[in-house]
């Protein structure tokens, strides 16, 4: 990745709504050049998508979010990729990571209610042959998302010399 592309990604990570023109101004580059670079980044899958990061509990209502730790036995020749590919196919799985340490897969899921989480674990996850154990942790409260502390108002004066 070029330095220019990296700079663009950094800007979009902070603000996905920055326009080509604004990015061009920030980097003192041509708008066309920025547009071409962003399109390439999207096409190459460097930028997966643009989304809003929502902090408001009211929005989520009764939705339940959980982290599920899963121990699996890796498959011969395919390692973890096959099972990971299979698990990511479920709609309720929002993020999926391969981890080092005490367990292998970390699954972040979002479901309408508790029962749905239970069903996901008992009827989907635990039926997979290579799954050895599952531990489900419900998310109780969010304090910081994507680098932004929720509700943290900076006590800054409006005007200073």
């Amino acid at each position: 990745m070029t330095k220019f592309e990296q700079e663009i990604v950094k800007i979009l990570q902070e603000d996905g709504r920055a326009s080509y023109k604004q990015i061009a101004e920030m980097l003192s580059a041509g708008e066309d050049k920025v547009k071409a670079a962003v399109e390439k980044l999207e096409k190459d899958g460097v930028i997966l998508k643009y989304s809003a990061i929502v902090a408001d509990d009211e929005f989520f209502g009764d939705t339940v979010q959980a982290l599920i730790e899963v121990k699996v036995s890796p498959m011969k020749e395919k390692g973890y990729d096959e099972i990971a590919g299979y698990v990511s196919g479920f709609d309720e799985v929002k993020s999926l990571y391969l981890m080092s340490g005490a367990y292998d897969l970390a699954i972040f899921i979002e479901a309408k209610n508790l029962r749905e989480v239970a069903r996901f674990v008992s009827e989907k996850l635990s039926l997979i042959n290579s799954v050895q154990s599952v531990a489900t942790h419900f998310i109780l409260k969010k304090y910081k998302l994507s680098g932004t502390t929720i509700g943290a108002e900076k006590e800054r004066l409006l005007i200073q010399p």
Partner: protein
Amino acid sequence: MNYDELINPVVAQLPQSGIRRFFELANEIEDCISLGVGEPDFVTPWYIRDSAVKSVVAGKTQYTSNAGLLQLREMIAKYLDYRFSLSYEPKDEMIVTIGASEAIDLAMRTFISPGDEVIIPDPSYVSYVPNVRLVGGVPVPVKTKVEDDFTLTPQALESAVTPKSKILILPYPNNPTGAIMTAEQLAALVPVIRKHNLIVVSDEIYAELTYEGKHVSIASFEGMKERTVLISGFSKAFAMTGWRVGYVCAPKDVIRQMYKIHQYTIMCAPTASQYAAYEAIKGGFEEDFSSVSEMREAYDKRRRFLVAQFNSMGLDCFTPRGAFYVFPSVKRFYPTGDEFAEKLLYGESVAVVPGGAFGAEGKGHVRCSYAYSLKSLKKACEKIRAFTENLPDNK
């Protein structure tokens, strides 16, 4: 009780800062978007905060030596050498102060007798003039012009010198203009400074925030260290404004005199803050100051964005190469920055600082800080654009 006859007339006659009045106006506006703040929007890096906590937990709560922790002074010396090729002896050429602010005051008190003149580039940071007045000195503003990129030219300096001139304040990178002085521009001042036997008080608090090139200190020129009082601190480079730690470096015969004032009035900079400052530089060396570079790069993007935005709105903008301010002229719309800022505040709830607060030469400008997130800057620009689009063109 009538205090009027009791208060020191020098203090009584100090004008309220132009910023103060505006601050009060802005505070009444609900959901005000401000570009008015002169401090980093970054929080002090975690490792620095942590070191201060640990120092307190470990019970390091007493005074330090008056000049500041020796280990901190050694670190500052190493830092100045590595970053700016300056060589200062930690033992007797340096005092750790309560921010650069104390250092400015120390410099004035140490050199100025009543009637001595202090040459100050105009516009500049608001506290130089009052500091000079408080010790009975005479501030002599010297106009810096947008045509000269707001630098101090040897001609302008020469024309401001009188037999009473004693100090030249050299505040670059500059608040509010964002101007810097290049090595060539500084070199041109050296003969004038030496000819008139001036002391230079070089306020380099924004040195780390220099874009397109590297900061050069006047003290690094031949024959200049002996007549330079170098002032800097941690507030801007390490996002540590609230910790109040700065430092002053000067020849030891000068430091010896300053030390007395510091000792009698301050004792020492806050101990926890000194431990934090020590860790700021130590940690900086461990990562080759990459946190500082990251901050600078973030500011740089915002700088380019704001300059492009303002120019496209008809707010003529000199391209600043230091600090975190843009200083556009508002003359196309209003004769003064005061009017522009007030109308903008009431019209669109955006606060910028009228340039007149920084000296007579700033009157036709406003100072906008880009120590804000891109999101806030975008929002502010939208509002300022809406505001200017509805204004009649004064030209």
